[in-house]
């Protein structure tokens, strides 16, 4: 049995390297060579845990250090295997590596699909509505400054729609601050959005495209976003997600960290589609409670589909699937009709209207009907 090995010795007082041989003699380690003649108690020399194939490091009681790449010689000389931690055992065990890969994939899937949305909605419950209202005012201000003009919808129509809205708001049990705003925004097409804090904005194009029942159905959908705290939950989802990615990949190079977040774009648009479905089913329920019919909502979606068809020049409507922030209009309409039961089945198709004129700039295409 070899009872000695070669090593580099550093005494800890200077950075000089000494090439030495270490011999195990009874209870002593004798370190000799290159101007060193030194012995230490074998029991006081601690072999530091292994890490991959990096050299073995043996810490000596006086602050000295032995470094050698020869694991086998060290093990043979000391008569015991070089210390291995649990982490090292797992790292060198192929099955453990496979289990780790599978475990991460599985955990990742569940965390994204269920864990993050669950945590977001729990946290959102504890954030009072009121805290967001200032936010809505600021957002509306800046949109008014940069992207929207005052509405051109006649006052009597606005009053009628406001009455519809008030009825739905009360039935939805939405907070008092929730209110309706009309704006002209050529670039946005027929659209409606719920700002965090409960300001709901509808564009003139949407109001012109639909009758009052249909606009009310769209408002019911937006009230769903407000009631279900989708704005807050969206922010929380993104923060949790960014935090997890940073914790897991943050120590990689900056580019690697960013790149690792790319596939999760799909997951984020997935959350967005889930919110839309949630708001749709809220709208359907609300219309029922307000003695309206879910077919109103189906008609509103059909109006949007017809509008899109006007600009599609015969192309098939595009559905980007997992890259879309909204589910397809057809799918959502089906769901609304199914909820209406018999009324839905017997529903005559909504009469097509003539296509509206192109908006001012002439370049914008409508993309998503009802935005959040």
């Amino acid at each position, binding site marked *: 049995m070899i009872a000695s090995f070669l090593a580099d010795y550093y005494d800890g007082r200077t950075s*000089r*390297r000494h090439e030495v041989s270490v011999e195990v003699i009874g209870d002593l380690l004798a370190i000799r060579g290159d101007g060193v003649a030194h012995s230490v108690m074998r029991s006081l020399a601690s072999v530091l845990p292994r*890490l991959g194939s990096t050299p073995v490091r043996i810490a000596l009681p006086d602050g000295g250090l032995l*470094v050698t790449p020869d694991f086998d010689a060290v093990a043979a000389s000391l008569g015991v295997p070089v210390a291995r931690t649990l982490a090292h055992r797992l*790292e060198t065990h192929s099955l453990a590596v496979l289990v780790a890969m599978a475990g991460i994939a599985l955990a990742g899937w569940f965390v994204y699909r269920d864990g993050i949305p669950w945590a977001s909605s729990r946290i959102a419950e504890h954030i009072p509505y009121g*805290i967001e209202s200032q936010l809505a005012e600021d957002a509306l201000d800046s949109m008014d400054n940069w992207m929207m003009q005052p509405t051109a919808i006649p006052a009597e129509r606005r009053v009628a729609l406001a009455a519809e809205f008030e009825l739905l708001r009360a039935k939805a049990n939405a907070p008092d601050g929730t209110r309706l705003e009309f704006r002209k925004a050529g670039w946005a097409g027929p659209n409606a959005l719920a700002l965090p804090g409960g300001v709901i904005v509808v564009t003139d194009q949407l109001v012109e495209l639909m009758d009052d029942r249909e606009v009310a159905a769209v408002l019911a959908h937006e009230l769903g976003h407000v009631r279900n705290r989708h704005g807050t939950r969206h922010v929380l989802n993104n923060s949790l997600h960014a935090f997890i990615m940073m914790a897991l990949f943050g120590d990689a190079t900056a580019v690697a960290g*960013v790149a690792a977040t790319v596939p999760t774009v799909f997951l984020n648009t997935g959350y967005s589609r889930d919110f839309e479905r949630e708001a749709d089913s809220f709208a359907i329920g609300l219309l029922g409670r307000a003695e309206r019919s879910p077919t109103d909502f189906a008609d509103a979606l059909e109006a949007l589909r017809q509008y899109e068809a006007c600009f599609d020049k015969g192309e098939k409507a595009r559905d980007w699937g997992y890259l879309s922030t909204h589910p397809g209009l057809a799918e959502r309409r089906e769901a609304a009709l199914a909820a209406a039961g018999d009324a839905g089945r017997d529903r005559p198709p909504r009469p097509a209207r003539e296509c509206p004129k192109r908006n001012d700039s002439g370049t914008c295409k409508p993309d998503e009907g009802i935005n959040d």
Partner: protein
Amino acid sequence: MTTAPPDEPAPPAETPVLEEAAAAELSPPVDAPPEALEPTTRAYPFAFTGHWKEYFRIWIVNLFLSVITVGLYSPWAKVRRTRYLYGNTWVANANFDYHGNPVAILKGRLVAVAALVAYNAVEHYLPSFGWAALLVLMLVAPWLITRSLRFNAVNSSYRNLRFQFHGTYREGLLAISPLLALPVLGIFLADEDFVSGPVEPIAMAAAMLPMAAFALGYPYVVGAVKRLHVRRSAFGAAAFDFGARIRSFYGIYVLAGLIFAVCSFILGATAFMLLGTFDLAWVAISAVYLLAGAIVLAFTRARVGNLTFNNATLDGRVRYVSTLSAAKLAWIYLGNLLAIVASFGLLVPWAVTRTAHYRASCLSIACDGDLEGFLGDVAKPVGATGEELGEFFDVDLSL
């Protein structure tokens, strides 16, 4: 972390900021100089000997342990990964070692998480206090930066001697001071009515002012933080010094801005031609931003790295020679980006070892005379309490 300049996270993992070196090739120094710079000067190259398959095992197992412990294990995972990267970085026949205490790192992470949550909550829910919150964050930043640099230095060793960092809060604040203009201008402008008025050139200009101030100050801050980092570092009792001028950093960032503009334009035009429409525009914009970002990041990393290392000296006798190529580094980053996206992150270890290998291959130290002799003289500083402090009080804030 939010506090460090984005393209320069404290000391890069595998790094060298600190070293020293020594020598001794196996053959006697006089006969076979590996590379003659001047008659009496010898170069000692760095080398990275880690292998991605081995690193992958370490990375994935420790990631798994972090996941099943809800992140509590992650400081231990970080220590293992860092030890692997340091342990495989060699110069002059010796490797580096990392001694970070996972408990200290865990404390640091908890503090960082609390700070980030607080900052994001203020920014989101009280936007009018956003600038004030940023100001507070920036006043805390020098403390975080100097603590973090110190933690990394005292927990890094070469040849059984630790590195040191002596930078103070005041020096850190001075280094990042131009960035304070961002929140200060923001607070000042937020009070003026014209900013929230209708769109006018003056309002636009006023709204851009804080960002412009940031852009103007940024290169100074990068240079000043590098200078602080190098000048106040030491290996054992041997101090580092830094000879570069801050204005050299401006040249790098002006070029970087131009490169970003040109790359974005070319990539954007290509994407538009390929797609033929504005549909999916946000996907194309993100992709263009990522690609152009990777190229610019590679450029600034390479140039700032070269400038910093080539102007750093140890004890007036040992110099660094860094020959990073921006083009090669960009090629590596783009490859990393593709591999990581396509593998859903699984190839992160491949990207890390590949980058470390290239960076090490571009770095060497040069010494007039006998490096081993010089190293033999570098002693442990008298009354070194740094490492003990490092164990108990310091926090590592790199997430």
